[in-house]
């Protein structure tokens, strides 16, 4: 059971969240090539080790979070809001 430290709600069980995919890929610009868009959707790294992922606190405050997690040990190093417009309540930096 992962325990994710939501910046707003505190430490909560993984079943309050839904996984939102790789947070290291960047959405291409509107003018990017079709190739870029293809890779954005279909090409993913699958690292064994530290990784950045999106998690949605779907059964909580509904914030999208960026979680740094080790995919091997499941250790979570940091949790931060995905949106720069949502102030981090603890004043922590991303």
């Amino acid at each position: 059971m992962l325990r994710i430290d939501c910046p707003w709600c505190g430490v909560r069980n993984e079943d309050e969240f839904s996984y939102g995919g790789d947070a290291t890929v960047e959405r291409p610009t509107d003018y990017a090539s079709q190739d870029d868009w293809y890779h954005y959707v279909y090409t993913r790294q699958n690292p064994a080790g530290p990784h950045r992922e999106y998690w949605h606190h779907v059964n909580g405050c509904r914030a999208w979070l960026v979680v740094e997690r080790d995919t091997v040990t499941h250790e979570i190093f940091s949790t931060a809001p995905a949106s720069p417009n949502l102030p981090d309540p603890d004043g922590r930096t991303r």
Partner: protein
Amino acid sequence: MGQQFRTSSSGQIDRGRILSFTFDGKPYQGYEGDTLASALLANGVRLVGRSFKYHRPRGIQTAGSEEPNAIVELRTGPRKEPNTRATTIELFDGLVANSQNRWPSLSFDIMSINNLFSPLLSAGFYYKTFMWPPSFWTNVYEHVIRRAAGLGKASTEPDPDFYEQCHEHCDVLVVGAGPAGLSAALAAARAEARVILVDEHPRLGGSLNDENYSINGKAGSEWVDEIHAQLEEMDNVRVFTRTTLFGYYDHNVVAAIEKVSDHMPVPHQGHPRQRMWTFYPGRVVIATGATERPLVFGNNDMPGVMLASAARAYVNRYGVKPGRRAVIATNNNDAYRTAIDLHHAGINITAVVDSRIQPDAALVEELESLSIRLLTGSTVGSAEGHQQVSYVQIVTTQGDTLDPERIDCDLVACSGGWNPNVHLHSQSGAKPVYDDSILSFVPGKSRQSEVSVGAANGSFSLQDCLAQGVSAGTQAARQTGFKSRKMAVARADNEGDYAIEALWISPTPYNKNYKQFVDQQNDVKASDVVLASQEGFDSVELLKRYTTQGMATDQGKTSNVNALALLACQRGEPLPEVGITTFRPPYVPVAMGVFAGHTVGYDFMPVRRTAIHDWNTKQGAVFIEAGLWLRARYYPQQPGDTMNDCYIRETEATRNNVAIVDVTSLGKIDIQGPDAAEFLNRLYINNWLKLPVGKVRYGAMLREDGMVFDDGTTSRLEENHFFMTTTTANAASVLAHMEQYHQIEWPELDVVFCSVTEQWTGIAVAGPNSRKLLEQVIDIDISNEAFPFMSVGECMMNNIPARLFRISFSGELAYEINVPADYGEQAWLELLEADEELEVSVYGTEALGTMRIEKGHVAGSELDGRTTAQDLGLEGMANRAKHFIGKHNSERPLLVGEGRLQVVGLKSLEPERNLRIGAHLVDPSVKLETVSQSQGHVTATTYSPQLGCGIALGLLRDGASRHGEQIEAVFPLDDETLKVEVCHPVFIDPEGELVRA
């Protein structure tokens, strides 16, 4: 009569409370405090089961949850539970247990003939034998194997009991309430940490209940009672008995099963049978003790062969003599205590057989003083007897096997050493390491916040257990933020040192072939380990899977280390080189019911009801589940009304007059802000910037991969205020999708939104007379000129504030009215009663579906995640001059080229025959044999009252250009073929004149 194997005194049983029970139909008596196993032994019942593969007679080997052999069916009827361990079942009055895996009876089991064919049943037997032909795999082999190699049979009746799931937080969790665990719990509790102590037994004390130890000058059990009393007095301590910690998961979350009612015939009224606990401890102290391993010798599975510690436990804890004449076989010091305790209980110890040449001098002296015969450098080569041991043959460990001494006995208490219970440590992600001094694995480097103490840490001295417990408890409190106080360590009064010399397998008498079992529950023999290794399955993980070693319900608690050692011998390597398999949860078998908890039956999932639900129920509506929603499917009017009768009547009433339908379950999202229009413009394929206030637009949104995600209407209520509807099915995922893009990709957009699905009741009013009806109740001008198609406006419906939308799903002149949910039923009733002459009726989702197919509206069955806007005929709405989600990928060549499945209408060409959902669309010249010949499929079907024939929507390869073709809809499962005509998906009013009337 009975209980002829009781000791005269001793034990933690209440001899004043006699309990009756039956085993295989025969009545017996035991005492309060017995387990089923101890009560059977007290009555001289030695044979309790048949083995898994060879159907060999098996008895009771242990006194705990590690039991591999004494597996029984407990209770009868709906509470029947197969594969329960007799050693952990607390005896209650009226208990009924039966042996399993035998036919026709336990003492005469036909399948024991497998024992004679055992050379055929060696490692990998199933893989080698049941290979050909493949058609036999499921039809023949599986049935035969399952019957022959069965365990018990589960009840097929519904479980009458219920289960609970609970959560609890604490600073320090102590697992196991033996000397180490009790010391740890007390030390942590005194430092004021919140402590939870769990133990799988009904009574705290762990090994102290099984042994004759004394602590601080008192009997061990007295010390236990004192500590227990102290713990009970503290507010910061919770003690759970009958609770087994079975899983150690990530982030220091652990799970335990509390057997609330299993020690009673039936649970108390309102009490669960079992409770699953999820604990969130700051730190875990693992004090789970150790498990003794058996010796591997010929016929070591015979009833009467028992672990030395178990024999001691039966005498000391249960006041039962597990035999009358005992041979003690050992390779270590510990079993000497069995000899001494059993001797004092009046059991004749015919010999202690120690594989070591020079055992501990003090122990030798003690046996001498009790006149117990000691054989050194020797071991049991084989146990002999019919269905239970009557003598053993002694061989020397030097390999002198040709002149074995025969010693009569009815009990062989053996010890091959002790394995620390490293299961939880291993489950936590850590790797146990080999400790040569105890010839077993001990906890390695911790990966989570846990520490093992006492025997679980490989420290078998009582004094060490007490000291490590205090130290770990104190430290755990400090690590979780509490000031620790010094606590004195209790004094162990009597104990010796533990010493062991390896003996992994005994020589056999006359070097003959004997069955020497390693894993007794799965019938894995030493020779199977050898064979697996010879055949190349010589890593621990391969060995395990090839021989099934350690894969039975006991998870190899008594057998794994022996198997690893034998594999190491075979490979000629030291044991640590061979490694150890990873332990996985659950530590003990856990009933499925406890994982389901309360989420069964009615509580399986939440039910969402609309404001019209009660009215619908009173009308006798038949409901259908739409996600969590219950929607009225159709409304029978008189007895015998079929669904077809109803939806045809409801459809006709709508098309000819006016009818209303509850559409509350559609997702509704309120969107506000200066950038609301821009936000919609990026979400949807169509244009939103220029939508005038007071207008509705039908929109479609794509996923990033270019496929259609959802559709629905969105209205502009004010310049910066929109109201979106989604399909019922996607309401939640559309909101999450919007949040994702707003928070992650477009934080610059000044927009807010939230779900208002439950705040509004939605009622569609459809039919040529819908305007006439609404004019009676609405306070705004809804003439076609003032309120044309795709208008939206706020209004009053009688006295209810409402929003009115002129949209149509049915293809008729229609409106949708939204009122605050609290007014939902009132609005519904007022619409029905507004105009007596009109005879307003209602319709359900079945008629709704019929009309949407007639009108060619795509819905969930066409929006299947593989269709593009072009496939669905929605491409005309797209504005490809702007940017929107999925735009780029929807332009990939394969998505826009030929050969796509496109939505079409289909008409049955055979009267009285309707199409079937899922039917393949096939060229009439082709006989459908492979899927590649299918050109598409039928997605939604109905009988059309309007057209008087069966119609459908389907996805057909290049369908948009094939209108007018005659093809076949083939349903191979029922061998049905229907001639159909491909047509435009809009069957009625293709110009949309009705909706604009």
